[in-house]
C-alpha cells in the first residue's frame, strides 16, 4: 500500500472536525489515537451481522462469533510474533494487563523481595507494583533516568541482586519518547534468572514489536493507542509464566468444571478471561493492527521520524523553549518546557486556536518530581499528522508565548 498521507487522512473522519471554529490539529496521540473507518466499520458490522456470545452456545451465530474472536487472538499472536495463541490474553487495556500480572505475582513475591521499575514509568506500570510491594513487605526500587531521558544499563546491573524477583519497564516513555533497550534488559535479567515485564502502550503503534526477539516474559498494550477501539488490550505472557500465575478474576468462561466444593480452572488463555469478553473490541483491534500492517510499520517509522525531526527543529526556534528528553532513539513524542511559563496556560491558549496537546504530569508524577518540573506540554504525533499541522502548531505556540510574556 505504501505511505500516502492524503489517503490515510481520509480514513480518519474525525480529522475534519472543527474546534472553536478552527481546523482541529490533534497532537495528543500518546493519550489515544483516532480510529480509521476500517476499524469503525468492523465494530459496527460485528453488531449488525455477527453479534452473539462466544464459546457457549451450539447455534451457528455463536460459532461465527467464537471463530472471529479466536481468529483475532491468533492474528495478535502473529502480529507480535508470539509462539502460540495461548499466550495472548485479551484485557481491557494496558492498565488491566499490569494489574493482572501484579495480582498473580502477589503469590510469588514475599517479604524482603525486590521489584525494579524505572523513574519514567506511567502510573499504570508504577502503582500496581508499589501497592503489591507494600502489601507483601517487598521493596520497590527505581532505576533513575539520565539527563537526556535514557537509562543506564550498568546501573540496572548494579541494582540486581538475589532478592530481585521482577523487572518491569516501559518499552517507550509516554513523556520523553525514549525507546528503551528492552531486548538488552531481558538479556541482563535472564542472565540473573529474573523475569521481565514490558509495558508496550506507547510502542505498538510506533515501532515493530516482536516479543520473541525481545524475549521478555510479559508484554502488554492497549488497542486504543494504536488506532483501535477503547476498552480492549492485550497481555502477552510466556506460557510457563502464565501457568505459574493464579487467575485474576473468577466467573464464567474461565472454568473447566465447577461443583459445590471446588472449581477446576480452564486452560490458557481462558483462565484469565472471566466473563463475556469484548468481542467487538477484539475484532476492531484486529482491524487496526491490519491497518498498520497494510501501511507497513517500516513506512510508518520512517514517516514519523521525519515529523519528529521537522517538529524538533521548528520548536527549537521558540525563545526559552527546552525539549525534555533527547534520546537518540525516540518516537515522535516531544515534551516541552518554556521558561517562566506554566504549561496549563499555554495549553489553554492553544486549545482556543484548535490545537489539542496534553499539558500536565502525563500520569508520571514521579518522573516530573525527578525532573523538578510542574509538568510539561506534550506533543505526541501519529501517522496521520503532517508538516503543515506542525507549522500551524509552531505559529500558535509562538503566539501563546507572546501573549503570556
Amino acid at each position: 500500500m505504501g505511505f500516502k498521507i492524503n489517503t490515510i487522512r481520509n480514513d480518519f473522519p474525525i480529522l475534519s472536525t472543527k474546534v472553536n471554529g478552527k481546523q482541529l490539529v490533534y497532537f495528543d496521540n500518546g493519550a489515544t489515537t483516532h480510529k480509521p473507518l476500517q476499524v469503525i466499520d468492523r465494530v459496527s458490522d460485528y453488531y449488525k451481522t455477527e453479534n452473539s456470545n462466544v464459546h457457549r452456545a451450539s447455534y451457528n451465530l455463536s460459532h461465527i462469533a467464537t471463530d472471529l474472536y479466536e481468529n483475532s487472538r491468533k492474528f495478535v499472536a502473529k502480529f507480535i510474533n508470539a509462539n502460540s495463541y495461548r499466550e495472548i490474553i485479551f484485557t481491557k487495556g494496558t492498565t488491566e494487563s499490569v494489574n493482572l500480572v501484579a495480582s498473580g505475582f502477589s503469590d510469588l513475591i514475599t517479604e524482603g523481595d525486590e521489584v525494579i521499575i524505572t523513574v519514567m514509568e506511567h502510573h499504570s506500570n508504577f502503582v500496581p507494583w508499589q501497592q503489591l510491594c507494600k502489601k507483601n513487605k517487598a521493596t520497590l526500587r527505581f532505576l533513575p533516568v539520565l539527563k537526556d531521558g535514557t537509562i543506564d544499563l550498568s546501573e540496572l546491573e548494579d541494582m540486581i541482586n538475589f532478592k530481585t524477583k521482577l523487572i518491569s519497564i516501559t518499552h517507550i516513555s509516554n513523556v520523553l519518547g525514549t525507546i528503551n533497550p528492552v531486548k538488552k534488559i531481558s538479556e541482563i535479567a535472564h542472565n540473573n534468572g529474573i523475569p521481565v515485564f514490558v509495558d508496550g502502550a506507547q510502542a505498538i503503534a510506533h515501532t515493530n514489536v516482536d516479543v520473541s526477539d525481545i524475549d521478555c516474559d510479559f508484554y502488554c498494550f492497549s488497542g486504543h493507542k494504536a488506532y483501535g477501539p477503547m476498552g480492549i488490550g492485550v497481555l502477552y505472557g510466556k506460557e510457563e509464566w502464565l501457568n505459574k500465575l493464579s487467575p485474576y478474576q473468577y466467573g464464567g468462561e474461565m472454568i473447566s468444571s465447577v461443583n459445590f466444593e471446588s472449581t477446576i480452572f480452564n486452560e490458557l488463555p481462558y483462565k484469565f478471561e472471566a466473563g463475556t469478553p469484548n468481542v467487538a473490541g477484539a475484532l476492531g483491534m484486529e482491524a487496526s493492527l491490519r491497518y498498520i500492517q497494510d501501511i507497513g510499520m517500516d513506512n510508518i517509522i520512517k514517516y514519523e521520524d521525519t515529523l519528529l525531526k521537522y517538529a524538533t527543529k521548528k520548536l527549537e526556534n521558540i525563545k526559552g523553549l527546552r525539549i525534555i528528553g533527547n534520546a537518540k532513539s525516540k518516537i515522535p513524542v516531544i515534551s516541552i518546557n518554556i521558561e517562566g511559563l506554566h504549561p496549563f496556560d499555554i495549553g489553554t491558549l492553544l486549545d482556543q486556536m484548535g490545537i489539542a496537546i496534553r499539558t500536565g504530569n502525563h500520569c508520571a508524577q514521579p518522573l516530573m518530581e525527578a525532573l523538578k518540573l510542574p509538568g510539561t506540554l506534550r506533543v505526541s504525533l501519529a501517522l496521520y499528522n503532517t508538516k503543515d499541522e506542525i507549522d500551524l502548531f509552531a505559529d500558535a505556540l509562538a503566539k501563546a508565548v507572546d501573549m503570556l510574556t
Partner: protein
Amino acid sequence: MTIKEKSQSVVDEFAIFDDWMDKYAYLIELGKELPIIDEKFKNDSHLITGCQSRVWLHADYDEDNVVFTADSDAVITKGIISLLIRVMSDATPSEIFNADFTFIDDIGLSTHLSPTRANGLVSMVKQMKLYAKALHLKTGK
C-alpha cells in the same frame, strides 16, 4: 457595590471583546496585576485542591468585610482568581456565602474552560464560601 452589581460590571467588561483570544489576553493582563498573597500564606494549608495549577487562597477580616488574597503559578488561573476576588472581596461573610456566582457562566468563560479548569473554579468558589461561612459563624455578620 453589591456582589450582584460587581458581577454585572465584570460581565459588561467582557462583552466588549468579540474574540475569545482578546478575552484571554484581558484575563492574562488581570492575572499579571493580581495582588500577590503574603509569602507566609503560600503553604499547603492555603492550597486549593482540584486545580491543575496550584492556587493559594487566604481570607482576612477587615471590620465588617472579608478580604481575599490569592496567587497561582499559572497566569490565566490568576486572571480568573482576580475576577473572583473583585466580585467577592470586600463583602460581608453572609453576603458571600449567600451569593449566586453565575457571572463566570454569563461571560461564557465556563464553556471555554477545560473540565479540569472548570472544576478548579468550582473548588475556588467553594473555598471562598467556606471561609465566609466560618467568619459568619465567628462574628455573626
